[in-house]
């Protein structure tokens, strides 16, 4: 595939991520902060998000496996995940977190377990999509092109 095609594919892919609600305006804000002085900013922040989310998902799984569930603890983890997904613009993950917190407040175990499953799913989706997008960007850069905004 030539450079122009790659660039077009990237733009289309990115646009679809916004349309499908995977990413929101906040992701755009992060892209706008990236420049020659900070060329890997978006990848760096997103990598931090991946690491942090995986940690939180593990903690959530453990917390919900307990005989006697500490809902305050579960809520604290979800609050963190909600915050970080909001900070990078991972809208669908954020939305599940909101529902998740409501179940925590109600101390609804089933609801919480359902949300955990959902949030894992949404997280894995956005992770895959962002990784694909970064791969496309790398291909463009390697071909000597620049990333279209």
């Amino acid at each position: 595939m030539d450079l122009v095609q790659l660039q077009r594919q990237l733009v289309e892919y990115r646009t679809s991520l916004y349309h499908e609600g995977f990413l929101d305006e906040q992701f755009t804000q992060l892209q706008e902060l990236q420049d020659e002085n900070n060329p890997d900013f978006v990848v760096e922040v997103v990598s931090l998000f991946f690491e942090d989310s995986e940690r939180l998902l593990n903690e959530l799984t453990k917390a919900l496996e307990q005989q006697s569930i500490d809902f305050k603890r579960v809520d604290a983890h979800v609050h963190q995940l909600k915050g970080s997904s909001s900070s990078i613009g991972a809208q669908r993950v954020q939305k599940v977190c909101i529902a998740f917190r409501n179940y925590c407040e109600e101390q609804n175990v089933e609801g919480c377990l359902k949300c955990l499953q959902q949030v894992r799913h949404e997280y894995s989706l956005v992770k895959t999509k962002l990784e694909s997008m970064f791969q496309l960007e790398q291909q463009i850069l390697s071909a000597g092109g620049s990333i279209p905004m």
Partner: protein
Amino acid sequence: MVMAGESQFHVLAVDDSIIDRKIIQTLLKTLSYQVTTVDSGAKALEFLGLHQDDTTNPNTPSPPNNHQEVEVNLVITDYCMPGMTGYDLLKKIKESSLRNMPVVIMSSENVPSRITRCLEEGAEEFFLKPVRLSDLSKLRPLMLKTKLKDQNQKQEEKAAFQSPKLQQVEQKQQPSNDDKGKAIDEGLSPEKKN
């Protein structure tokens, strides 16, 4: 009008989220501020040279900074943090010798009573997360105002030790404190509005 000088403003950012620390650091650097980030209120107090139970008599004059070498011009802190919340940190700073330090709170939750409480405790601003560049452009006038206030205070303290004649001359050259509105805002990088 007296400019606060070409030295950079130094912002101390406090947030327990590593992602948010990275973002706020980049936002502040984009605005040409010097930035230090810490992950807790306790570390913030340490960096500021305050001990956790450091409350001084509010009637003693406050020196501009009483900590190590680095001068901090503003503290921006997340509200929800384990251990010491942003509100607790705000309170401790306002009860210390650094009570003139501008403090700004950030929160992911829009809770009116929380906002009021923080503003009443002396927070200059309250930003909802995710914080934008446009929010942070409000910081410069806050830091400028405090720097001018500190400079004037220094001038007054100096004048107290000088001869009456010199005092008269100094008074004529005293910069006015009412220049808040004239604080020059350097051009910020344009942001797209959607």
